């Protein structure tokens, strides 16, 4: 489903050039649960952004569901993000003025989904993370774990093929982290592809497959690992 071949990502910095990713090749099959680990500055986030069509490789090929997406126009890439890819961020990124329900409806609002359908689907997504009773609360009335579960509901409400999570438990205590990972893993068991960026080895250990990244290079060959 995800196929990276010889991907480089470079940034010009002053006179020189920084290589965030060097010749990365990676294949992820549908339904996999992959942990992407590495020290900070290793290029984890850059790789996640490229996977999520937020960034483009400087060089190399990226096929998403069999389609080369590197050269797609921005409108097509935002359609992909809207319909096929879900994001979960370390800092939740919920809009403070909207209720949990409103935040979950956001991708559908900008996607032009009719109001009634929006309400029903948002309620369903909130139910799937166990937060239906809190639908009317605003983010500042929710705990950290609850906020991240709202963010997960928002990520899956459009029925994406993959959820990309960037340090989803980085801001949470142990118990909340357990809840959040439990929710994500349950969705993974139902067929959702899951890519989790983390530097927490315990969290990574829960994944069926672990990919190490150091200085922009995939440290070990992921193929065949289970």
């Amino acid at each position, binding site marked *: 489903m995800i196929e990276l071949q010889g991907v480089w990502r470079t940034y010009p910095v002053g006179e020189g050039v920084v290589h965030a990713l060097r010749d990365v090749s990676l294949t992820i099959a549908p339904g996999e649960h992959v942990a992407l680990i590495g020290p900070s500055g290793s290029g984890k986030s850059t790789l996640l952004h490229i996977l999520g069509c937020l*960034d483009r490789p400087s060089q190399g090929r990226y096929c998403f569901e069999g389609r080369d997406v590197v050269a797609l126009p921005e409108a097509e890439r935002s*359609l992909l993000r809207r319909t096929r890819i879900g994001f979960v*961020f370390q800092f939740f990124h919920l809009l403070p*003025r909207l209720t949990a329900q409103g935040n979950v409806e*956001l991708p559908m*609002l*900008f*996607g032009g989904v009719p109001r009634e359908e929006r309400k029903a689907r948002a309620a369903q997504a909130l139910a799937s993370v166990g937060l239906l009773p809190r639908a009317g609360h605003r983010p500042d009335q929710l705990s950290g774990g609850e906020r991240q579960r709202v963010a997960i509901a928002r990520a899956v409400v459009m029925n994406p093929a993959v959820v990309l999570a960037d340090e989803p438990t980085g801001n949470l205590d142990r118990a909340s982290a357990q809840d959040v990972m439990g929710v994500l893993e349950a969705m993974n068991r139902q067929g959702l592809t899951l890519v989790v960026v983390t530097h927490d080895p315990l969290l990574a250990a829960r994944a069926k497959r672990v990919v190490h990244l150091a200085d922009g290079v995939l440290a070990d060959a992921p193929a065949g690992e289970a």
Partner: protein
Amino acid sequence: MAFLDLLGFAVGALRGHRLRTALSVAGVAIGITAVLALTALGEGARRYIVDEFATLGSNLVIILPGKVETTGGVPFGGVTHDLTLEDHAALARLGRLRCAAPIAVATETLRFRDLGRSAPILGTTADYQEIRRLRLAAGSFLPSGDPERSGTEIVLGTKVAQELFRGENPLGQVVRVGPDRFRVVGVLAPRGLSMLGFDLDEAAFIPVRTAMRLFNRTSLFRIVAEVRIFAEMDQAKAEVLTLLKNRHRAEDVTVYTQDAMLASFSAILRVLTLSLAGIASVSLVVAGVGIMNVMLVSVTERRAEIGLLKALGAPAPRILLAFLAEAVILAALGGAAGLAAGGAGVGLLALAYPDFPVAIPLWAVGAAVTLSFLVGVGFGVWPARRATQLDPIAALARR
């Protein structure tokens, strides 16, 4: 449907910053109020002057001897006949004219005992009172009757009477003009400056035949006539011209209608109103820059939100529309508040000065609404475009 949703989103964002929203709404409101108030004042001035004209009688035809246009090069062409009392008598018989008054004018010194005062003296007939809607403070106007009659009555303007008689009752007194003696039969009520150039309060009136002899004139200064039906103005004007052309065997008079003068005054004042509105709309531009500032701050402050929307796959045109909607809502609220404030202000003014006909013209309301909308769109586009061009990764990096 989708547009309403975006509108709802924009309203939610604005409600998050009530003070900032209120201030930029106030900016637009002040601009719109200024536009409305100034156009109302300008329009009020126009109506006031038009009304003044109407009290003078707007259905007047004024006949002057002499042709304004240059005539051909024939050596004997362009001979001007006098405009005579016989012409006046012929005009007075025209069916379309209610009445006509001949006027002969000269400035002479009026004397009462040892006091003298220089004043314009109009030789005319009783019809002049009706045509100019003159009211008398005391006595009566010139007696009606044959214009050829050489009477010795005189009617004084209020100021002339005051200054010549110093509080004495002028009625029945004798006033000298040159060698002639006149008996005061009436004093005009104060009238003030006439639109047509001179102050009736400063004038005196005597019978026209006497005046022509006294001033040693063979031609009248002009004839003023009132048309019976306003709609027949043009026909009346044409009939007057034809009649005088036949009598003089040449087209050697000029005929004005007061209607035409009124129209040009009105046009001049409308330009004045427009320029006032233009000056006031500068404040709308200031308000627009205010909106732009608020929207730019809003875009900068909500980088994370915009980054999130992009990461969630919101199409750039919809993000643009959402931010533009915010700017337009600000401007529209400001426009509505400005309309209310302007309307209330003009209403108060109308209450305070009931004689001055202030009113907001309908076109100004339309222009104000359009302007506030344009300000919202015009000054909202750039910040909104900046929002869509934001790099989502940088925007999401930190909160």
